[in-house]
């Protein structure tokens, strides 16, 4: 098989083998991968822009290491896509916003430095909802992303481009970000694996801030093993992000092969309110596979689940209204023309530069923090967040992992929910809880609906137990029918 035909099916392992056996060089692979991605991209709009110079320079460096007989790194030559809310030195980073349309970051995010150090080849930056705000990728200032499985449907969001690129084969793995489900939901909609680590597991230095107490960098891949490898590369303490945790990083790849017999799994009944839906059925079929492998499954209750969406849309918008205050026309590329006074310049720049969803969230966040409303909304939401986090603490006293759907429904059609923000917000109902509690969570493909749309099964574990979560996901992936 020629290299060009192999591109969409490559794995981290097959690339490593190809490079070590000298079947191809990293430079040859990168050229082919770029050619393929650029040719295929118009079908989905997954990439906003490519960075061939940076990619080829990374590839050359891998080839030089191989020639010298040095270890080229865990991700040597692997074509990677990076969500365009993660900054890349010298490569345009827009957050899919008109506000940052021409922004060229002067530094790399820590996760990007980690990719570089591991020999990864960043092909380009992926489309997303503007400032990662959305669940369908329709809020991008540069056009929506189409789901590679069905172009009439959304890929999910906000990391829609990162999931679509991996599903389409134009990247082997990708980085996304998850604030309320933005890695898991698009992974589920596109039929790929998406993992959001524990809050604090991966440095957010260089992740354009949306809601700081909820933002995570996450990973997307076509299989669980590649997911584990990518997480391995980016996990760990970073002194430039004081919220990153000084907790040792285990060997995630080694953890994959441990058994799952005797693992206790909880099914929270609040996540299966509609047990006859196709989505619930596919997830419950997946649970049967785990039972066969010797997992003990029991039903549990997480009573505060139904309050998560309400608490989340107070907390995330409040934090967003503060984080997005920096876009004022002074420092970051975009400024409204013809404003006479400084105050007008601020207002007009923000009015023209932000899209509808960003404005909605800034407004809601400003409202809930404004004089007289703070206690009723923000403080109340923070207290409810405590109750939701406690639900998890209680659950993990009884069980080692939780299984739930990722989304109540598979990928919906473009435009279907765009005019009703509340309906769009409710599509995150099963992912937001984990974001509020900061527990690790992932989506693993568990089947397709009668209409041929992929469905993901969500696995959640205790803080910093990504290894247990990956082990469960790996056992499931290898044993599902």
């Amino acid at each position, binding site marked *: 098989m020629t290299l060009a035909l192999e591109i969409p099916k490559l794995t981290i392992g097959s690339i490593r083998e190809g490079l070590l056996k000298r079947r191809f060089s990293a430079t040859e692979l990168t050229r082919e991968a770029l050619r393929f991605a650029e040719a295929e991209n118009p079908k989905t709009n997954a990439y906003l822009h490519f960075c061939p110079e940076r990619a080829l320079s990374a590839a050359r460096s891998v080839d030089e290491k191989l020639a010298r007989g040095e270890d080229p790194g865990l991700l040597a030559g692997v074509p990677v896509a990076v969500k365009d809310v993660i900054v890349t030195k010298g490569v345009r980073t827009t957050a899919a916003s008109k506000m940052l349309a021409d922004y060229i970051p*002067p530094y790399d995010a820590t996760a990007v430095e980690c990719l570089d150090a591991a020999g990864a080849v960043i092909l380009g930056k992926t489309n997303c909802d503007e400032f990662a705000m959305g669940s369908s990728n329709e809020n991008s200032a540069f056009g929506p992303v189409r789901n590679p499985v069905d172009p009439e449907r959304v890929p999910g969001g906000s990391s829609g481009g990162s999931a679509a690129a991996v599903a389409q084969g134009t990247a082997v793995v990708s980085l996304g970000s998850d604030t309320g489900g933005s890695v898991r939901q698009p992974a589920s909609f596109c039929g790929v694996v998406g993992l959001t680590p524990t809050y604090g597991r991966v440095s957010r230095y260089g992740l354009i801030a949306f809601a700081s107490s909820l933002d995570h960098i996450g990973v997307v891949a076509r299989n669980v093993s590649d997911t584990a490898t990518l997480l391995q590369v980016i996990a760990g303490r970073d002194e430039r992000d004081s919220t990153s945790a000084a907790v040792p990083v285990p060997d995630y790849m080694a953890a994959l092969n441990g058994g799952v017999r005797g693992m206790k799994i909880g099914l929270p009944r609040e996540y299966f309110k509609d047990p006859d839906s196709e989505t619930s059925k596919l997830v419950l079929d997946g649970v049967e596979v785990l039972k066969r492998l010797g997992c003990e499954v029991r039903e549990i209750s997480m009573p505060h689940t139904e*309050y998560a*969406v309400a608490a989340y849309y107070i907390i995330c918008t409040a934090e967003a209204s503060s984080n997005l205050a920096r876009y004022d026309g*002074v420092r970051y590329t975009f400024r409204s023309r013809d404003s006479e006074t400084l105050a007008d310049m601020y207002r007009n720049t923000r*009015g023209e530069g932000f899209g509808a969803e960003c404005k909605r969230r800034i407004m809601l966040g400003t409202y809930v923090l404004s004089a007289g409303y703070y206690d009723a909304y923000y403080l109340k939401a923070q207290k409810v*967040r*405590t109750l939701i*986090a406690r639900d998890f603490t209680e659950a993990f006293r009884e069980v080692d992992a939780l299984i739930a759907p990722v989304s109540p429904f598979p990928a919906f059609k473009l435009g279907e929910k765009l005019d009703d923000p509340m309906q769009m917000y409710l599509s995150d109902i099963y992912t937001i809880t984990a974001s509020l509690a900061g527990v690790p969570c992932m989506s693993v493909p568990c089947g397709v609906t009668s209409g041929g749309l992929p469905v993901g099964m969500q696995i959640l574990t205790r803080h*910093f137990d990504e290894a247990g979560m990956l082990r469960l996901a790996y056992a499931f992936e290898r044993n599902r029918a």
Partner: protein
Amino acid sequence: MKLSEDEVRYVADLANLTLTDAEVRKMATDLGAVLTYIDKLNELDTTGVEPMAQVLYEAGETETLREDRERPGLGSEVALANAPLAGGGFFKVPKVIER
């Protein structure tokens, strides 16, 4: 819960956001719908519950602080490179003070 257009304009002012009249009308409807949904939280009694501002893990008090040492900054040329308008080593903005 319904938000009046005047309330929307007041909040937009706090947020330093210019909204068109059409945006104000749409915002009143959209925010009203979300605020109505959010009222759901009042079903819960949260008396005596500590607010959660951050996900915390068990760590010493200063464990997440880095050593306080000097490091080079970006330098003004690099820092100004993305400015829409700059000159003489500064960001330029419309006149603030009357002469």
